[in-house]
């Protein structure tokens, strides 16, 4: 049961298989069949418009609920703007809040969705559906985008994981194989901690082998996912330790750090770009602090300029490296914030209308999809549910949206819970 962790080539047999698969994909543009991978093959995707151009995804998730009015959906009415001004951008249809001047320059790359709505007014539930496409329930845990994409598209990386979540210290793959769990990087500037071995390699290998022998009985005694997942994590950690790819996580030598902003969001975006460059399929950058029930103007000054700088730097960097065409950049949040300013000068939760943004990876730039009403209170046209937003992401990535996956308890699920991709966003 315990697998031999490392063979002489520094790669497990499983990884060799993955390597062959990824080589095949690179050279032939095909996914190897299921018999080879031991899982159901992805159904051939109908050649829908713009599908599959995004080979990677950077999903920036702003936890707490980003005020749509102060960012991507500003209004002319002073009543609801509470101090933020509306500014024009390089792409006429797109207007932004006045704290996003840098991003205004990049508007031609962006498709802004101003007609998001959700039925979840609580943070946890709202975030859950924005990241999984499903409502949070008590009997099952749904996977996020990274593990689900890997399940459907197959593993791509040799050493590096296919998905990474930055700004979060734990992660899971929901009901999918724990081996698909995104690698959590709590602090982007800290990279992957504890990668220096305590002893020389030989002795480390000896220790590891003994640990495996001693752990075997316990692993076999209890048929639980938990202990088994640890075996998988030891495997992944060992692979990572032996590879040079680990450097991708180390931002210290990176010359462009300052441009992204020396904060978690900025450095998270920089790390995401480095990982995408190394072939990681999905990087989620999770950043909190957007729950502004009090003194919203002060709080916006703390957060929005960071977002402005980080996103702008990310766009510039991806463009310069020629990665924007194949990298989908998505910005999500659990809900917007109330048009009324509350007695504490703050804005409360507002799931009835909010904004998200997509760019790169086959997305048509310089457009606004959907709209909220004059006050930003309700959706006025082309409503978009969280499921549709994720379906759009999946569509860009070439994920077969209609393919059913069964959980171990035999419950059927699809990538975005049958959400409909917004085809109008694709070039």
């Amino acid at each position, binding site marked *: 049961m315990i697998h031999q962790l490392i063979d002489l080539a520094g790669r497990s047999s499983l990884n060799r298989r993955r390597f062959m698969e990824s080589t095949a994909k690179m050279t032939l543009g095909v996914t190897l069949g299921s018999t080879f991978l031991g899982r159901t093959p992805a159904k051939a995707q109908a050649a829908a418009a713009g599908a599959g151009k995004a080979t990677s995804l950077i999903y920036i998730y702003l936890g*707490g609920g980003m005020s749509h009015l102060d960012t991507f959906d500003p209004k002319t009415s002073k009543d609801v703007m509470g101090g933020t001004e509306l500014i024009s951008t390089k792409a006429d249809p797109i207007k932004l809040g006045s704290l996003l001047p840098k991003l205004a320059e990049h508007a031609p790359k962006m498709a802004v969705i101003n007609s998001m709505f959700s039925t*979840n*007014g*609580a943070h*946890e*539930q709202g975030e859950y559906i924005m990241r999984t496409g499903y409502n949070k329930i*008590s*009997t*099952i845990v749904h996977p996020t985008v990274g593990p689900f994409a890997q399940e459907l598209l197959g593993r791509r990386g040799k050493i590096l994981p296919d998905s990474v979540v930055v700004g979060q*210290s734990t*992660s899971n793959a929901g009901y999918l194989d724990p081996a698909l769990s995104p*690698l*959590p990087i*709590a602090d982007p500037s*800290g990279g*992957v*901690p*504890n*990668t220096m071995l*305590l002893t020389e390699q030989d*002795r480390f290998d000896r*220790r*590891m082998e*003994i*640990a*495996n022998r*001693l*752990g075997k*009985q*316990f*692993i076999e*005694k*209890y*048929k*639980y996912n*938990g*202990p088994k997942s*640890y*075996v998988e*994590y*030891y495997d*992944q*950690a060992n692979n*990572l*330790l032996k590879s040079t790819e680990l450097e991708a996580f180390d931002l210290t030598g990176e010359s462009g750090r300052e441009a992204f902003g020396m904060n978690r969001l900025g450095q998270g975006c920089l790390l995401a770009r480095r990982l995408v460059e190394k072939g990681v399929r999905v990087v989620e950058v999770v950043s*909190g*602090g957007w*729950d502004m*029930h009090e003194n919203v103007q002060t709080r916006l000054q703390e957060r929005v300029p960071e977002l402005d700088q980080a996103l702008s730097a990310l766009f510039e960097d991806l463009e310069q490296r020629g990665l924007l065409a194949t990298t989908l950049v998505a910005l999500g949040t659990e809900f917007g914030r*109330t*048009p*009324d300013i*509350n*007695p504490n000068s703050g804005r*409360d*939760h*507002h*799931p*009835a209308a909010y904004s998200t943004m997509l760019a790169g990876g086959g997305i048509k730039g310089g457009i606004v999809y959907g709209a909220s009403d004059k006050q930003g209170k309700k959706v006025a046209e082309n409503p978009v549910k969280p499921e549709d937003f994720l379906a759009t992401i999946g569509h860009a990535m070439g994920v077969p949206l209609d393919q059913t996956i069964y959980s171990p*308890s035999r419950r059927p699920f699809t990538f975005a819970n049958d959400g409909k991709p917004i085809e109008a966003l694709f070039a």
Partner: protein
Amino acid sequence: MNRIRQCILTVAIILAATLLPRGEAREWTSTDGRKLQAVFVGIQGDKIELKLANGQSVSVPKDRLIPADAEAAERFAVLGDDSFTKMSARNIDNLLAQTLVKNGFKSFNDPLPDDLFVRRVYLDIIGRIPTREEFQKFADSPRPDKREALIDELLIHPGRASHLFNYFADMYRLTAAGDFNNGIRMEPYIQWWKDSLTQNKTYDQIVREMVTATGNIGHNPAAGFLLRDAGMEFDAFSNFGQVLLGIDVSCAQCHDHPFEEWTMEDFYSMAAFFGQTQRTLSSYKTEDAMGMVKAEMPGAPAGWLEQFRTFARGKGINFDDPAASRQFGWYTTFLGWNLADIETRITPVPESVYDVGGKVFDPGTLIGKPAKAGGKSRREALADWLTDPENPRFAVVIANRMWTRAFGRGLVNPVHDFSDDDIKNASQMQTLAFVTNEMKRVNYDLREFMRILYNTRAYQSISTAEEPDAADKYFFQGPVLRRMRAEQAWDSLTLLGEGPEIDTRKGRDGSFLRELLKVDFEKETMDMVFAKYEAFSSNRGETMGLAVATEPGSLSPGQAINEGLRASEMVQPAAAASLLDTFGQSDRFVTDQHNFDGSVPQVLALMNGGVTSSLTGSASKLVTDLEKFDGPDDKVRGVFATLLSRFPTEEELSLGMKMMEDYGDDGIRDLGWALINSPEFLYIQ
């Protein structure tokens, strides 16, 4: 139907309590071999008072009893006699067993062997693994009652409060500072939690104090409960429902509940119990004749705040300097964050909410009977309603949560959101009803309640070998296999490096900050308040919460200790990317967020991290600790006892001895490393 059943059960319990069968009382043995069946009453001087089955009281000198019984009397003096405890435990076992048999199980899982028992109770009760000495002491003890004695001993141990604190810190989202406390430092409130648990304050009392607190966090640290969510009252109410009623009503905040009968009106009516509660400083603003807005200090005479500013200016505070001005503002804001109930205050539903936006609701209970106002404040009426024995949710929620702590799975799930139907359809529905009533019988004494559970045969069974599916019914043939909480892993690793001194080592103590915010505006002069401000100003930041009250009234902060502390004594919660965070400690953003998943960074921390380095490096405590052992076989046994609290199997022993033969003490280090890095270390079997 359910009510009737509950009544019958209650009656049965009361009957059982009055007609205590003879056999339930403990047998006390004198040094000359005479035996006596009696219930412990108390200790008077050096005499132990016992009550016989016929009601007669006897007084026995301590030294006339055998040591085991004299020791039992000491425990009982704190915990009370255990005859009810054991009877209750047996009742639970009987109820569980009946249902198990009905569902095709022979009985419980096999009984837990001593070694697994000792590790489990240490982790479950005091939140860390036992030391090798503690393990050995238990293994060597020939006493037949050694399990119940150890359970009692641990229930009196200071680690119990520490471990239970970690649970409540997650449930009640305790954070020292940060975005969601409106900048208020919460150390006094956190300290109040720790003190309450150390004193074993009853849970209904803890809740009552939190729900009804008035004043600021210095006057009344329990005010932290409501101040934590000031500015997000309705979200706070969603949390309140999950934590205290086991109902997640958060969706009814924006729309009627999709599955239950709750409407938005229900939600806002229930939330209206807090509708007259003033939490922030901002509403204390008054307009003067010129139309200028002035803030007033709650509880202080009119104009106090302005006078204090003038006084501070006289003392040299330069308000033109933004930093100094901000510093002063922080202190006065802290002082001002205050809970009060104001009858004229109304809290309308936010305009943005569909259908009910702008409306003002009268308080109404979501479930059960209406709350009785009776001239009390709305919050007092709410506290009465919550803790009333007839409240249909309060007792079952906390009983089920405590059950989950012992068994790894609730009798009804998830613990923060279950319906009445879920209760009716619970796999062990009678047990659920029984423990709910037991929670009331013990008057919400959580220590006594846990004492009952730990004494059950069900708890003292081997963990179920196959993971039960979350969607399937589980009948509690034993606990499920559980991974340690982040805090258990941290405390265990810290124990290995530092020894059991960590159990009494104090880190953060909120009493210093509490003193600075406890201002009596009637009695204290401006000079006295200014002295508090100065102490605040010079100790702001991280050191604030580290202050230890060295002597009464002393305003000097204590020394910061950053290492060698148990998780409960550290900043709440631990920093991102710290070991605690890596192992899943909740960020305290929403309730019950502890994460038990594994990850690559976790295993890297165990492979290459600082703790492993100190345990298996050149100055390895593991090695020095075993120096007194002669033979390599004893050393190998010692490593297993230290890390896994068990003896090695034959195969493991010979593997360990081979390693010592080949590599000497380095073999011990390698073995220690291997055991920390085998998944067994992180699990509670």
